């Protein structure tokens, strides 16, 4: 994906709902493998899609702390749900990948590098928070002294079809993280889905020459002022309806000053240290390595796998784990996301997608915990105080 800023002044375009399949066909003809949301085992996941019908057509989701439910209705909305347990990171930063293989031969061994072929992927339906998550991982994997070559190779082979959110999930708080719900760049094409009486269309913004080229092969027409305004209104409403938020003012200093806050003990009493939050988070980037030897012992594979700072092994050094308590591990996770990340990468590590809230088995909510930490008072009154401290109305 080429990074180009939106060209101002270019009239928004429009694709009718019945022409949307043609967008898929054009991308396929251009040799992209299409990846998009689809329903599997009761949730929206990201996987290969061939047709518009493979999308979760007519589905909406109900998300709450520790719960997720899909509902089906008769409408033909293609993007009427929020983000599910998957994020696009699994395509750029695979959950498990073999780095190289060592082959033994008579007391010595050779190291054989892995040939990794990135294939062109068209990501269908990428949300604003997710684009921001990719931008954050770009800094992690591409901007350092060492780049992750797997990420780099796949990153160059993406076509991004972004979508502006037509509804906010209950656990979303992207607006307060300045990460959504409006898509603002880093895409090839961005659409807003509009259903207005009998009409069902997508307004389209072009974000790159590649997007332009694809659009030119799909039936489309300029959007009228009214059609554009409707689309705009939808996004504004989405932002306004968001219930959760994080007050990010001075958050770094606040967290540093909260190292001994009693709230960490309170969280630790609930947290299972299962690491679900790190698995579903679109920005979490930690990995470990594993050596796997075959039965003959003549080949040894070195794998890289997703890891979680919630395990004791994560910080193990001889003599014991540095973060042996659950308290210290949750503190590390949240402090990293919202504070040290800013120093390391010049951006927050959280885009407010809400996944960690929905998929936490015990319903720990990062927005509530931050609010409690911001309250100077003792644990018993922290929740009350938090209500005064953070206003959900001003989002």
């Amino acid at each position, binding site marked *: 994906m080429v990074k180009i800023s939106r060209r101002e002044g270019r009239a928004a375009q429009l694709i009718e709902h019945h022409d949307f399949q043609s967008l898929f066909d054009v991308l396929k003809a251009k040799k992209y493998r299409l990846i998009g949301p689809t329903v599997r085992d009761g949730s929206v996941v990201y996987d290969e899609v061939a047709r518009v019908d493979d999308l979760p057509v007519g589905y909406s989701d109900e998300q709450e702390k520790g719960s997720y439910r899909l509902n089906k209705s008769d409408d033909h909305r293609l993007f009427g749900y929020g983000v599910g347990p998957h994020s696009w990171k699994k395509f750029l930063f695979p959950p498990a990948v073999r*780095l190289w293989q060592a082959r033994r031969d008579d*007391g*010595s*061994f050779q*190291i054989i590098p892995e040939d990794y072929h990135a294939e062109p992927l068209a990501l269908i339906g990428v949300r604003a928070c997710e684009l921001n998550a990719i931008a954050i991982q770009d800094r*992690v994997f591409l901007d350092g*002294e060492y780049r992750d070559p797997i990420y780099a190779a796949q990153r160059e082979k993406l076509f991004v079809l972004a979508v502006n959110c037509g509804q906010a999930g209950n656990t979303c708080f992207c607006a307060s993280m300045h990460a959504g719900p409006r898509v603002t760049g880093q895409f090839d094409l961005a659409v807003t889905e509009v259903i207005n009486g009998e009409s069902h269309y997508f307004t389209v913004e072009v974000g790159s020459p590649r997007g332009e080229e694809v659009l030119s092969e799909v039936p489309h027409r300029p959007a009228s002022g009214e059609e554009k305004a409707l689309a705009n209104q939808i996004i504004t409403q989405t932002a306004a309806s968001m219930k959760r938020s994080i007050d990010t003012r001075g958050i770094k200093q606040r967290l540093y000053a909260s190292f001994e806050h009693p709230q960490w003990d309170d969280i630790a009493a609930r947290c299972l240290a299962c690491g679900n939050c790190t698995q579903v988070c679109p920005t979490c980037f930690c990995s470990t390595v594993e050596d796997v030897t075959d039965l003959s012992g003549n080949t040894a594979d070195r794998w890289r796998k997703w890891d979680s700072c919630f395990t004791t092994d*994560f910080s193990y050094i001889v003599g014991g784990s540095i973060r042996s308590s659950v308290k210290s591990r949750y503190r590390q996770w949240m402090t990293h996301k919202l504070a040290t990340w800013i120093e390391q990468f010049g951006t927050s590590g959280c885009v407010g997608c809400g996944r960690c809230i929905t998929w936490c088995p015990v319903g720990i909510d990062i927005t509530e915990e931050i609010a409690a930490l911001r309250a100077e008072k003792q644990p018993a009154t922290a929740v009350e105080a938090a209500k005064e401290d953070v206003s959900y109305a001003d989002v």
Partner: protein
Amino acid sequence: MLMSDAPSITAPTASDRISDPMLPSPYRVQRARWDTDDTFSLELVPLDSDDIPHFAPGQFNMVYVYGVGEIPISISGDPTRRDLLVHTTRAVGTVTRAMSKLRVEDMLAARGPYGTAWPVAEAHQKDIVIVAGGIGLAPLRPAMYHIMAHREQYGRVVLLYGARTPGDVLYRKQLEQWRAHFDLDVFVTVDRATGSWRGSVGLVTSLIGRAPFDPLNTVALVCGPEVMMRFTTMGLEKRGVDTKNIYVSLERNMKCAIRLCGHCQFGSTFVCKDGPVFRYSQVQSLLTKWEV
């Protein structure tokens, strides 16, 4: 470089290879010896080039033992010797024990060097105090080599070394040689005397008070267990050494050494990239907290 009877080893060199930054290079063990009961040194020669990569004192490598694992180990050899990579390792667990079983002609793989270095250039014209505990002398030895090779550029040079028992004293011959120098003060102490030991007994921190250096014009390099470093820095501060002039080398779990795996985080720092050598003033507030 290859021994005629050893099978040839081909290491990929294409820099555009996908696994490149995590891809180690092959080395052959040229010499293996036990320094103490549990600590051994390996001298390694590179198999895919003539020279080892240039390194600065204090930097480390990721060392891979076939099929067992990969761990961070400091480079403990003379930085001017490019033909030989030296690692001194304490056998404490899975990978280090497997490493200790390697014999001459065996192979291992390593990548690096990584991390920050001891400030040997910045310390010109200053007194140098090196404080090491146990295996902590290994990452400091390249700094000693450098300082001794450029002796005229420094003021007084003091080495304070503490080991658990006389049997645990690392690089014993070398310490004796260094002690014979008129322009170097070497003090060795053990926690617990055994056998014929007639030297100093007590913690290494007890040597700081009477060591000959000018606290206001000193750069201190400290490496050892974290508690030892905490007390050492306290002792140095008490003598009047500014925390900005004290350097410590930290140990954290490391899986990549290239700032990508997240394991070595310590506050906002990545120990593999921002460390292992830190200015004490930079990490003091973190080091005095638990479970950071």
